[in-house]
């Protein structure tokens, strides 16, 4: 495996976004919460647009709307006024305050401002969670886990031991979250799933609209995560400093199991086996039947898959899970790009890709110009990742299997199911069928060129004219 880092001064078509957008998602998965972005108006609007288009849901995110005056003299008053207005319109129980490049650069102390605000207004019920998410400080994946960690830190209180399991979810789809919950229910395990935007970002149509979406992880459950039997964090690529599970382990002694997102046979097995180790409960026959069906599906499609050379990109955790799934199925990961992956993640990817018999490139700091160049040169024939990968389809004719966040050019980003045995079978079918489709489109002309037209040219050049 070759590891590449761009040595360029310019990014050509970014393949990741910034920290605050990652921070919004877990906050949308907490019951009764609102988000405030401390910065200029555009940040919240761009992020709302991206999230709304991916989930096809209204996404209310407030901005402190910093202007020149606030930038020069400090944005504290803006921040407090914004909190007042959010309370009036939404009456939330928790408000996450995310910073931006601007707020960080002018040195806003949101920790102090939040504490001052609560004291000045005499608020004892409202929780304000300040999260430092400078746009230049990392990718959306960093913002996602850091916001989760701060939510846990803000709410956690010492609790007596109980039997629930903490599940810290990666940035998967609402359909994936529902599937994780279904697996836990099937195993008869009590759990706290954080975040849980299964309902808040995939809201059923209802006759009466409410500004705050029903659902999300209850605050009381988050408070009690400190007494859980164990934490399973879907975050192999996450630095310990921003890991919520690590915080629960270090400060409250909750045993931490870090697992990959359960996509693929091995990762789903590992997830269920870990649950069994913690709780002593076995997977029921229904789940084992699902496993059998997945194996059946893998066998059915294995020869088609073996022709696959994949480019995989997106958030590191999802890219890692998909890379392992591709390896399981002979869809050899050829160009793997995880924007913003740290050193620990890089060694994980190296170890995984070492299993591949085919050459592969791992790109940790990259852009779509680089991914395109490598993919074309290495003969990639299927791309797997968010919508921006359509650039590879448009420029190089490499078809895209849309997966991850954000999906902006297709319907149903919120409904894509990829976790568990059933979700993996769905994902695999999508990849295999993309390969089949590409083959069907080209095999007639390709064989004609190679064995008919080409042969005539070779054997009797005079007649070929």
């Amino acid at each position, binding site marked *: 495996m070759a590891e590449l880092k761009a040595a360029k*001064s*310019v*990014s050509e*078509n970014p393949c990741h*976004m910034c920290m605050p957008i990652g921070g919004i998602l877990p906050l949308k998965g907490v019951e009764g919460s609102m988000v405030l972005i401390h910065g200029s108006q*555009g940040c919240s609007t761009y992020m709302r647009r991206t999230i709304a288009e991916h989930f096809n849901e*209204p996404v209310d995110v*407030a901005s402190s709307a910093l202007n020149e005056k606030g930038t020069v003299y400090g944005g504290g008053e803006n921040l407090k006024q914004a909190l007042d207005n959010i309370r009036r319109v939404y009456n939330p129980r928790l408000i996450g305050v995310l910073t931006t490049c601007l707020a960080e650069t*002018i040195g806003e102390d949101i920790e102090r401002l939040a504490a001052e605000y609560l004291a000045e207004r005499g608020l004892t019920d409202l929780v304000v969670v300040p999260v430092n998410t400078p746009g230049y*400080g990392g990718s959306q994946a960093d913002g996602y886990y850091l916001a989760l960690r701060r939510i846990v830190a803000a709410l956690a209180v010492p609790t007596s031991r109980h039997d629930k399991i903490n599940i810290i979810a990666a940035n998967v789809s609402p359909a994936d979250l529902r599937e994780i919950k279904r697996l836990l229910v099937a195993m008869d395990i009590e759990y706290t799933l954080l975040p849980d935007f299964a309902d808040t970002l995939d809201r059923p149509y209802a006759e009466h609209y409410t500004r705050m979406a029903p659902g999300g992880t209850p605050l009381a459950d988050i408070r009690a995560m400190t007494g859980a039997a164990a934490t399973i964090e879907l975050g192999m690529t996450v630095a310990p400093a921003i890991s919520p599970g690590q915080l629960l382990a270090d400060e409250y002694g909750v045993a931490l199991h870090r697992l990959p997102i359960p996509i693929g046979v091995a990762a789903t097995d590992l997830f269920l086996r870990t649950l069994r180790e913690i709780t002593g409960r076995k997977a029921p026959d229904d789940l084992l039947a699902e496993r059998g069906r997945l194996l059946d599906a893998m066998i059915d499609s294995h020869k088609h898959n073996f022709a696959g050379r994949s480019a995989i990109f997106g958030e590191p955790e999802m890219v890692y899970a998909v890379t392992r799934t591709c390896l399981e199925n002979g869809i050899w990961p050829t160009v793997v790009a995880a924007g913003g992956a740290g050193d620990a993640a890089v060694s994980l990817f190296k170890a995984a890709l070492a299993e591949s018999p085919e050459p592969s490139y791992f790109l940790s700091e990259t852009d779509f110009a680089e991914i395109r160049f490598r993919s074309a040169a290495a003969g990639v024939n299927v791309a797997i990742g968010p919508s921006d990968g359509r650039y590879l389809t448009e420029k190089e004719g490499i078809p895209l299997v849309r997966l991850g966040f954000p999906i902006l050019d297709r319907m149903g980003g919120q409904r894509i199911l990829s976790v568990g045995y059933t979700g993996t079978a769905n994902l695999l079918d999508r990849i295999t069928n993309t390969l089949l489709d590409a083959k069907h489109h080209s095999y007639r002309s390709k064989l004609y060129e190679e064995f008919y037209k080409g042969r005539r040219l070779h054997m009797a050049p005079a007649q070929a004219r």
Partner: protein
Amino acid sequence: MAQALAIDGRQDFITTKGRQISRLKCDDDSIAGAVSQRACVYCGARVVLNPITDAIHLVHGPIGCASYTWDIRGSLTSGADLYRNSFSTDLKERDIIFGGEKKLAAAIDELVAKYAPKLVFVYSTCIVGVIGDDLGAVAKAAASRHGIEVIPVQSSGFAGNKAAGYRAACDALFRLVAPGTAAEAAAVGKDRSINYLGDFNLAGEAWIIRDYLAQVGVDVNVVFTGDASYGELKRATRARLNIMQCAGSMAYLASRLEETYGIPYMRVSFLGLADTADSLRRIAAALGGGDMSRRAEELIARETAVVQPVIDSYRAKLAGKKAAVYVGGGFKAISLIKQFRELGIEVVMVGTQTGRKEEYETIDSLVADGTVILDDANPAELEKFMTEKGADLLVGGVKERPLAYKLGRAFIDHNHDRKHPLSGFAGAVNFAAEVYTTLCSPVWRQVKTGGDLSG
């Protein structure tokens, strides 16, 4: 009602027809915590300049700003497609501390070496405004190093709202089109052609209008900025008249071109049958009438004969419905009110992100008593007034769409990345068809009730 208006200071931005429109507050900063639908200065500048097809659009800032605006508009090109890339200096913490000027210079050098452009726009973002990188100096040095034009766009996100970004873009354009040579200066306003300002060639709209004008005998010199190239923009001052569709973004450039080069301008609108016909007539008249006016009338008659029956057939299905409008600019809102009237639909709520006082006065004069007029609305207000006024349909952008659908209301995309044109006679039919498609879809019959399953 009390809940939505509970945001301090928002009361002044909302009025109903029948009250004093002159007291409506607009063109002001958004209120903190109000969940405004507006973007920032950078956004305004980027959307105006981005359709210039053979330019490098380089964002000097953190990755997010470039990420959220990559290929953001559905502006079509007849040639180069360099504009569909998003370049960024991807500033990191060390750049914030030590300054990003060297990185910016190196980025320009790399891009020039790779793409050999004639024109580079360098956009500033929030943090660049704070750390004080001298964009002008870096751009100037790069321009002389490479012998091309490198234009700084002063678009720090916090320095005003989206309208300030339009102004920053107009400043950049004005600089770009300045006649450099004596021959160019002598050619100012001497051509017989016109410039078309404020069309971004979304789904080929500028091409539709260019074709109409060609049929009238009018030559379009350059479009600002849909499908524009560097070479065309450099010749912009030759035209003898500017016509302007999107006034919100282009009024400043139009008035500067008039002040400095004596090129007059007029407002036009190609949204809806009435506005399209009226605009063609006024352009022909402004260029001397005669044959042009005759050809304009022929075109209008020819197109109307084809299109009017189609519109009428939709009108029969839509009459009596109520619409809400929430769009970027005031001029678009005005056209939409008229266009809905052509379909027999009354507008009961109308608002914009960046509308100006005189535009709100026109809006007020067009709508019926009781219509809610509001500037810089937020989701809570949109929800409240759509519900109160019984709007069956909302016109807006991507962020508004899921809200309308969650409220069980129809929706029209008047956004940047749509793939069907809404301008001219062809666009009027598309608009009517989309209104029909969304208002008369069978899905609404299913969502009205909870079925027989509940209770």
